[in-house]
């Protein structure tokens, strides 16, 4: 067994708003090995970003971790003081965000913003930090980094800004990089470049990655293991192979069916998942997906299903896997060898 870097156990995070407790994450468990890339997939409001912000302990008021453990290198981050977290953030766990256009401070140079993390965590002098910043910019593929280091963010294009964000995140060789929708705001050609860069740097710097996205194509490209989240819960977990070619949860199947594909031609329409996600202010008692699930049974509404294990690494929270459940065969249309 490979060494575990991160082990999230039964994480529950809620937002205590004036209308009540919004249970954004309702008991999420997963683990990540050293050097592994894990994808977290789900639609808006499924709790994937809140999970990542919980790991960073950067939840905005009124969000709070209610229960659970986040073991990072064997130590529970939930119990760590804010001061201790500051020495971990940007140093051992780094993060890049969705919108590179707004994620960099417009009034400081790009170099300044890279140097900041280096000076903070590695205690380098300003000159050395600047040298390192230039190195990082070169590493992420910014042309003539010696000049670009003194540019302001508005002088960078969107793709370059995301590269700069990656440079900031990786400047202290973190053990874990959390990328929250890193390509969503970029156009398609740039998306591919950024993903290539991330894959490449993952090897070079030996960083583990958690890639959060709603784009199944993106995870397929980068991640070896995938978690599918819905309604604040992990619906299904498996290797990329298992999730794409042998999905066990109707929600995963629904997601796969709704990917636009060229090979279907113009006649076939995309199959959306009907309905809308559950209100986490009053989360349903049973399976959160039951209301939208075409195969829902009575028990699905009444009781939340446990995890059924297909094999050691492949689990699904669905009553259909119970031995008494009817056999459901679904054709998602995802075939090997077709992009």
């Amino acid at each position, binding site marked *: 067994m490979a060494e575990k870097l991160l082990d999230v156990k039964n994480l529950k995070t809620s937002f205590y708003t004036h209308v009540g407790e919004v249970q954004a994450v309702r008991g999420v468990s997963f683990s990540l090995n050293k050097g592994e890339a894990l994808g977290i997939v789900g639609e808006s409001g499924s709790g994937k970003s809140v999970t990542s912000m919980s790991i960073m302990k950067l939840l905005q008021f009124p969000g709070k971790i209610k229960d659970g453990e986040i073991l990072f290198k064997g130590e529970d981050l939930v119990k760590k003081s804010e001061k201790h977290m500051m020495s971990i953030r940007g140093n051992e766990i780094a993060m890049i965000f969705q919108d590179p256009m707004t*994620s960099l401070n417009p009034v400081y140079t790009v170099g300044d913003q890279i140097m900041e993390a280096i000076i903070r965590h590695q205690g380098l002098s300003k000159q050395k930090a600047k040298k390192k910043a230039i190195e990082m910019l070169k590493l992420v593929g910014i042309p003539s980094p010696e000049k670009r280091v003194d540019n302001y963010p508005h002088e960078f294009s969107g793709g370059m800004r995301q590269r700069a964000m990656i440079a900031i995140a990786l400047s202290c060789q973190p053990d874990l990089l959390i990328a929250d929708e890193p390509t969503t705001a970029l156009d398609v050609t740039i998306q591919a470049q950024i993903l290539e860069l991330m894959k490449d740097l993952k090897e070079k710097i030996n960083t583990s990655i958690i890639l959060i996205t709603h784009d199944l194509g993106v995870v397929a490209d980068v991640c070896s293991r995938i978690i599918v989240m819905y309604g604040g819960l992990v619906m299904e977990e498996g290797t990329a192979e298992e999730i794409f070619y042998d999905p066990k949860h109707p929600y995963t199947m629904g997601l796969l069916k709704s990917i636009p594909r060229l090979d279907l031609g113009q006649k076939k329409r995309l199959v959306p998942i009907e309905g809308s996600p559950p209100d986490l202010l009053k989360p349903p008692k049973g399976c959160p997906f039951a209301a939208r699930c075409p195969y829902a049974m009575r028990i699905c509404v009444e009781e939340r299903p446990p995890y059924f294990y297909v094999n050691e690494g492949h689990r699904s929270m669905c009553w259909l896997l119970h031995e008494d459940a009817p056999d459901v065969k679904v054709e998602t249309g995802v075939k090997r060898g077709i992009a």
Partner: protein
Amino acid sequence: MGRFLANRIISMLITLFLVITITFFLMHAIPGGPFTREKPLPPKVIEALEAKYKLDQPLWKQYVDYLKGVVTFDLGPSFQRVGVTVNELIAKGFPVSAKIGGGSILLVLLVGIPLGVISALKQNKWQDQVVMVLATLGVTIPSFVMATLIIYIFSSKLGWLPSHGLTSWKHMIGPMIALGGFSLSFVARLTRSSMLEVLQQDYIRTARAKGLSEFVVVGKHALKNALIPVVSYIGPTIAAILTGSFVVEKIFAIPGLGKHFVESVGNRDYTVLMGVTIFYAAFLVLMILIVDILYGFIDPRIKVGD
């Protein structure tokens, strides 16, 4: 930068020229003159006075003569104070006003901005509520009420502060607060709302994700962005505060520039009225220029020079 400055200085001069022209003709369009009295002076005396101050010449000639004076920084003699030139009035009054005003501006910056920041950081907590109540009072209470209250409470009742004159630092406290109270409150509110907006920005989250301390996140990343609207308010405010306030100077009996503003209008003291107006206008456009240059330093997206 050089070209930018040249362009701006030219447009400043045009602005000043327009201010002079409009004020000059408006002033002369108002009925009455410097020598109009309730009990009229004998016509012979008026004639002699008008001849002395060249008011008997055609208006356009007076205007041209005045412009000639302005170009050589000669603002002429006062019509009401015999033997005193407008230049002397300004040279005597402005330092007094500026002393109080400078203190006021420091007060606005050093108290207003931190209060706004604290308020934003403690949004909806008691600290925020206290600051906002005070700031609302500060914005709504007129300076003459504030000045009177300060004299009543701190001079008359408590005896902590002198009530009038300007001979020690203690004398400055009352006028400084009365003069800067509004701007201080306004800046606190402005900083607060601007800060609240900036703290929601993605780059603040990035800064936190880098492991920076809250002090650096707020003091470096948030504050510089939050100050952009504050700077644009502060520029013209500095001009207004430094050139004095009639009300505050009157109440605290301070011999500043402010009283000349109002008295010259009532007295139809043409040269003083023009001189003080030009001085204020010149100061204002200069401050606005400085603000625009400062912008370039604070926000690199605004390029000074294009």
